[in-house]
């Protein structure tokens, strides 16, 4: 017998837009993180009205509601931590409007990040936020997580490129916030909603800025014999007033893993490489490329390669973009951290990460956005071994705590989600978390939307405001044939 909720969802959306069999739900237990949580069911709305209908049903059945794009998130933000309806936006994937003159686009949340850039490339424009998952991740997901990417060093993160949202509050209310014109009157609601990790509203429409593609791009690869030389180069480039469009670092171990996979011609015997990009007006980019190369050499770069054309540039980037895939070939599982530190603390922090890896017996690869101090240590482990899983979390926590000691933060771009909620008290007092909780409760008063995220769970499940699920709903996903 079908549960009432499933029947109502199917009648609202059609049978093809509702998944509920265990084998159908398997995929949706995961995102890009190591977290796992199974939803009760998965739905695929096509319109804002359908999203509103789903929200009404979730309220009627007091079932958690979780928004999801492509599921590439790295902190469990789009996982159904306490079960419930997973609202997947992949069928709301239309680009609604492109306004070339004003450099604006309005999209549905399921539009894939790189598809928008492709759609406006003919006009010399692009959507600047470029997470490494940009060929799969959705703009709705980018907005929820305030996603970054390699080029956010110069171009900013998603919040700097988002202008207006249409969203459905968990109460069912449809709201529009922000404006395609700048500086909307009143409180910066948009600034609050972007990056709220799906805990305030389900976003159904997004207006973004489009950025002009640079006239000239210069991509450099600098090869270093020591990690310290590479990190000190980063500090020096920033101190000299040059803001590269991207400044990525791979350590020697990661580089060897990458080379074995992509055969891009990376050196196998170095300690680190910096992938640097400068762009802009031809005259400025050429000058900056020379300046950057000079700084690299001053810090004992063994070699500085400059891409001569687009294919060479793509080859240099291929290593960076395929790094996670390359590491995936070497280990059953890896854990990606996302700590942030002041750039000047890069050398000491990398040394500390190396020590932490040795202490816990893990290989840690480092591949990260060096220019803004956003670290992504990759800890290789076997998730099938519970003891390893426990130790990898311990090692990861040590890294994060060291980042905080350096004046940094626990997440630069991946979000808190269900991965780092327990670490929030390291940064915020109870009173500060209470202020944030009240912000959430103002828009998500029953806690029905994306419960179990961002905020540390209090003992006795006090965190989750929604009542325990009715038995029929809680078991639906597992019992219905």
């Amino acid at each position, binding site marked *: 017998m079908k549960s009432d909720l499933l029947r109502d969802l199917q009648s609202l959306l059609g049978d093809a837009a509702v998944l509920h069999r265990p084998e159908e739900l398997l995929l949706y237990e995961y995102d890009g993180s190591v977290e796992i949580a199974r939803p009760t069911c998965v739905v695929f709305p096509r319109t804002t009205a359908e999203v509103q209908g789903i929200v009404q049903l979730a309220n009627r059945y007091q079932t958690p509601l979780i928004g999801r794009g492509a599921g590439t998130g790295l902190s469990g933000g789009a996982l159904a931590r306490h079960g419930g309806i997973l609202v997947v936006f992949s069928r709301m994937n239309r680009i609604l409007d492109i306004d070339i*003159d*004003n*450099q604006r686009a309005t999209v549905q949340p399921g539009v894939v990040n790189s598809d928008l850039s492709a759609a406006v490339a003919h006009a010399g424009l692009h959507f600047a936020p470029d997470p490494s998952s940009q060929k799969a991740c959705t703009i709705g997901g980018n907005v929820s997580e*305030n996603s*970054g990417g390699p080029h*956010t060093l110069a171009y*900013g*993160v998603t919040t700097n490129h988002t202008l207006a949202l249409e969203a459905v509050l968990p109460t069912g209310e449809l709201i*529009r916030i922000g*404006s*395609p*014109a*700048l*500086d*909307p*009157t*009143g*409180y*910066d*609601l948009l*600034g*609050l909603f*972007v*990056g*709220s990790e799906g805990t305030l509203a389900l976003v159904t429409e997004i207006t973004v800025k489009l950025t002009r593609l640079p006239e000239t791009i210069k991509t450099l690869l600098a090869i270093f014999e020591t990690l310290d030389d590479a990190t000190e180069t980063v500090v020096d480039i*920033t*101190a*000299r*007033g*040059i803001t590269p469009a991207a400044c990525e670092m791979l350590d020697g171990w990661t580089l060897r893993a990458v080379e074995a996979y992509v055969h891009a011609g990376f050196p196998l015997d170095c300690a680190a490489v910096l992938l640097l990009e400068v762009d802009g*007006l*031809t*005259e*400025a980019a050429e*000058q900056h490329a020379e300046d950057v190369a000079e700084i690299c050499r001053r810090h004992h770069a063994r070699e500085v390669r400059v891409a001569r054309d687009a294919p060479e540039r793509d080859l240099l980037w291929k290593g960076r973009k395929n790094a996670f895939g390359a590491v995936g070939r070497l280990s059953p599982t890896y854990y990606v951290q996302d700590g942030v530190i*002041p*750039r*000047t603390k890069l050398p000491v922090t990398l040394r500390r990460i190396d020590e932490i890896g040795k202490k816990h017996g893990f290989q840690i690869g480092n591949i990260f956005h060096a220019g*803004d*101090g*956003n670290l992504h240590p990759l800890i290789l482990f076997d998730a099938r071994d519970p003891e390893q899983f426990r130790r990898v979390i311990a090692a990861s926590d040590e890294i994060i705590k060291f980042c905080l000691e350096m*004046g*940094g*933060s626990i*997440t*630069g*771009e991946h*979000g*808190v989600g269900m991965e780092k909620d327990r670490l*929030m008290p390291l*940064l915020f*007092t109870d*009173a*500060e978390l209470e*202020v*944030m909780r009240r*912000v*959430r409760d*103002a*828009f998500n008063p029953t806690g029905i939307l994306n419960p179990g995220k961002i905020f540390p769970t209090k003992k006795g499940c006090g965190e989750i405001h929604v009542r325990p699920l009715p038995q029929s709903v809680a078991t639906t996903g597992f019992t219905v044939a």
Partner: protein
Amino acid sequence: MTPAGTVAHSRLADLVGLQRVVADPAQLAAYEIDGLRPSAALQPESAAQIAEIIKFAGSEKLGVIAAGGRTKLNMGLPPKRYDLALDMSSLNKIISYDPGDLTLSVEPGLRLALLGEALAKHRQFLPLTVPYHARTTIGGTIASGVDGPLRQFYGTARDFLLGVEFVTGEGVPAKSGGRVVKNVTGYDIHKLMIGALGTLGVITRLNFKTFPVPSATRGFVARFPTALQACDMRNRIARSHLTPLTLDILSSSVTEIFESDIASRFESEPLPPNVLSRTEWALSAGFAGSEKVRERYLADLQRITAASGGSGILVPEETLAAAFARKREFVPITLDSSPAATIVRMSVLPARIADALTFAQNAAEANSLRWAALARGLGIIYFALLPTGLNDQGRQRIQNATNSIHDACAKLGGQSTIPWCPTPWKTSLKVWGPENPSFPQMRKIKNVFDPRGVLSPGRFVGGL
């Protein structure tokens, strides 16, 4: 409302010390907002003291307004209650500054000009080139949300404010964001504080990303017979690969104001001759870089100027600062240019600037009002209406004109407010623009941060 003088001064002295309570009526006049004088001004020295003051105010149902340089307290609606002024000028330290990391943490009472000097020693700066630059504080700049010409390239405070510490309307010290340039930990509450006129919290600390000072800045001015041509040039620049630091369009009427004695109150160096014209619109663009880069800019700007049907010149280097200062101080200069100056701030899509200017010009002229306009290339327009007198006729004309401009902006898909107008007119004008569809959401926010209505009560949108 608490009548002036009824707040027990002894209680206030307990909170901050007797020497930090201003109760002398003559001194309190300096803290007046829209004609309202507080019964005391307090000069706290710490966030902890501020928290105690706010708790006290909450229990006594007092209204508290924080003030820095006291240059923009006339923005917004008149306060519903104003019992205590919080004079933030003692909280004026640079808490930390790491030039190598390009990050900065400051107290709100620090004057922007002094902060600029400290950063300049390391050839860095904050791109907050806002009006009242000599007197304004960093806290006031953020709380008022004013912008400056450099937003064309650097964006606004929301793009480089990394974190804020503040005291809520319930006296709870809290924070948001952090001190690193990239951070997604928790809600971005600090963005809510920008432009909130102190209605959500008393800012006690601000963290910023700093920027290297661009090398060899130059200024270019193109002049055109019509606004349409100036806007055409703006559109051509937007389609080019040029990324100027500033890009502003000035009406011909601005020239006379910028040449006047009033302007020299804000910038003593004279305006360079023959740069602006009293009969032509101007597009002013700033750029910087190596010699090759500057040559490229100049050549491209000259070519684009010609294509748009104007004539362009490079602003003489030695007069660039004086010219830039006037552009930065457009608001205070025009406010002083009429006994009842009213400034409408319009925001439209960049390609609609010409339409918005036409609407506003027609609205002004239909009501026999002198006007002057400065439009940022990104679509923000400061449209100053300059009546000849603070009288009923002036009020009626301003009311008609501003209502027309509000309507026009709404039709263009933008928005408009009246950040500056004479206090007596605030009740007849739509200071915060037409009804705001987001108001219910804003009220939720206000209720979270200041449920008792202690902070800047009544000044914000819809009387929040």
